[in-house]
């Protein structure tokens, strides 16, 4: 296995793609085939990638097939009750072992020559045992499916091929403190509301990746139609009136990011002006995804510092480096009440000019069933394939990628020069980089710095 064959190319080329001093990225980076191959090796074979949720595979033998970069993996619950992630490539002759997207199997048997594997990836044997068709050079222990390193977090399945790299906790760094407010806040945790939506977008994966790092600014124009029809939680019909939600607190660490919107802004948009204390408001208006019945659990599971953040300005959107997009937002339900939509996207590269956009919807397990059904509908209306917010994003990313194909177009740059700078409010926890004010380019630039760091790290 040669993962470092492009090393020389990398260290020179990457410094040409990214101008650290001027905070610019060459548009060529959105189309370059050599760079793309390096990204598969240095980012998608190294990073912790979110590839599903354990509630998709509740029973022993349940499995789903997912992507890590362009590699298919089997995510399965084995006899030990644990979630295992194994490369969906038969070590015999490279046939895909699993041919369905999901199902239940105690044995995964390759249809080509019949090599068989357990859900934990271990090799059982080949047909006609007495003939020992796996030979006698390698032992059965050496012939299992290639295993990824796995860590569950809030039920989310994270996997990486970097067996000696940082733990998931270290990978998140200070951002874990904030992610816990979304993923680890109730006693029973989240569950998926169904198998994910999947679609192909004719664009480079980084167009969606960098946007996920708190590009709040595009909301005003690209998503203007949603603001205009009052579907973003307010009655606003002008840019000026919708502008308050543009002010908030952006957080960034290790390329991960979250955007916190002041609870009094959300409250005012939903209910008009009021003069509640943060604690009263938290009771009257829990964070997205939390019903009043679940609030006591949140209070029990969160630290005082975390509760302060939730009451003041809960995180609502953001990303996880390199390829996750998070939306835990207030969203109207079809019964007329203000509910929420809990959405995660993964962005999996499929060549320099394509990626797969996968969309998961969630609810806290403790949510009443009829509300889960309405949350699912609300998430579908706003996000994903037909979402009135996100259909405009999927229209933009291909244009950016197309621009990179022109020999002149590719000499342009993506610019991240609108800077707020770190300015943590005195009552905000001293965790991660904190940017308060009108959302600017800070967190997105940090995404590129994390990209640069991983791409130039000694392999």
């Amino acid at each position: 296995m040669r993962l470092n064959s492009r090393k020389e190319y990398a260290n020179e080329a990457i410094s040409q793609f990214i101008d650290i001093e001027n905070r610019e990225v060459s548009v060529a980076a959105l189309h370059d085939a050599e760079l793309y191959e390096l990204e598969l090796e240095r980012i998608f074979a190294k990073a912790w990638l979110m590839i599903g949720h354990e509630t998709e595979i509740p029973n022993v033998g349940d499995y789903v097939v997912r992507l890590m970069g362009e590699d298919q993996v089997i995510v399965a619950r084995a006899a030990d009750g644990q979630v295992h992630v194994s490369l969906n490539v038969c070590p015999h002759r490279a046939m895909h072992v699993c041919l369905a997207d999901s199902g239940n199997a105690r044995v995964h048997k390759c249809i080509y020559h019949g090599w068989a594997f357990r859900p934990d990836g271990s090799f059982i044997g080949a047909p006609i045992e007495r003939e020992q068709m796996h030979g006698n050079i390698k032992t059965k222990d050496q012939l299992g499916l290639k295993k990824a390193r796995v860590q569950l977090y809030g039920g989310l399945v994270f996997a990486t091929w970097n067996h000696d790299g940082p733990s998931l906790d270290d990978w998140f760094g200070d951002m874990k403190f904030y992610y816990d407010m979304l993923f680890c806040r109730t006693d029973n945790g989240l569950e998926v509301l169904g198998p994910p939506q999947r679609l192909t977008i004719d664009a480079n994966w980084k167009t969606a990746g960098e946007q996920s790092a708190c590009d709040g600014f595009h909301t005003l124009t690209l998503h203007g139609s949603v603001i205009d029809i009052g579907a973003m939680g307010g009655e606003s019909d002008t840019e000026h009136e919708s502008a308050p939600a543009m002010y908030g607190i952006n957080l960034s660490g290790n390329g991960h990011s979250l955007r916190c919107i002041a609870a009094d802004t959300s409250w005012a948009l939903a209910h008009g002006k009021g003069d509640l204390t943060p604690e009263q408001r938290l009771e009257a208006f829990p964070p997205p995804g939390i019903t009043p019945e679940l609030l006591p659990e949140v209070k029990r599971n969160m630290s005082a510092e975390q509760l302060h953040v939730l009451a003041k300005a809960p995180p609502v959107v953001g990303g996880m480096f390199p390829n996750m997009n998070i939306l835990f937002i207030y969203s109207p339900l079809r019964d007329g009440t203000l509910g929420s939509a809990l959405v995660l996207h993964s962005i999996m590269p499929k060549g320099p000019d394509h990626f797969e956009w996968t969309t998961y919807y969630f609810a806290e397990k403790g949510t009443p069933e009829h509300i889960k059904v309405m949350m699912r509908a609300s998430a579908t209306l706003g996000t994903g394939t037909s979402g009135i917010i996100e259909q405009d994003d999927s229209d933009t990313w291909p244009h950016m990628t197309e621009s990179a194909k022109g020999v002149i177009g590719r000499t342009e740059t993506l610019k991240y020069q609108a800077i707020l700078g770190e300015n943590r409010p005195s009552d905000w926890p001293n965790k991660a980089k904190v940017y308060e004010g009108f959302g600017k380019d800070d967190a997105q630039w940090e995404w590129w710095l994390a990209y640069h760091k991983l791409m130039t790290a000694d392999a």
Partner: protein
Amino acid sequence: MSVTIATVNYTREDQRRGEVPYGSPVYNTIMGFLIREARLLDHREIKAWGELLAEDLEYKAPVRITRRVQQFDQEFGTMGHFDEDHNSMMLRITRLLTTTNAWSEDPASRVRRFISNVSIWETDAPDEYEVSSYLLLTRNRAEAKDYKQLSAERNDRLRMTKDGFKLARRSILLDQVVLGMPNFAIFL
């Protein structure tokens, strides 16, 4: 089975009674409805199309999953690409018609909906029919030389009212597990 597989049978064979003969007056009227509907959408007469939707509309396009043939009856998930009622469809239509910044369809795609293989059944409700049709949709945008295509089976519930037929339910069973078009800013 796990929570992610729909228990709903989206084809709803159990609601089908006597099949309406091809070429009969009812068959022709419903065929005319499907053709008119496709024409309205293809020509961006979205408001007029919206008037064909019943107030109790259920409009869904469930996520499809590749399964082994033994689980062929478990191909569709509880999540969908559409998961709509009348109000949400009206919101989508309002956005497309009243704003000047619904960018995913501005400039608009050139879309053709080819409807065929129509089968119609009577139901227990007088004036209501179960209608199954095939949809082949081509979508071209800007200067793209190729088309985004989509094929699906639609299972509808149509209701005759004093204003003509209304669409009360549509289940769109897509043939793609991974969609080839980047969004459904269009109706199916």
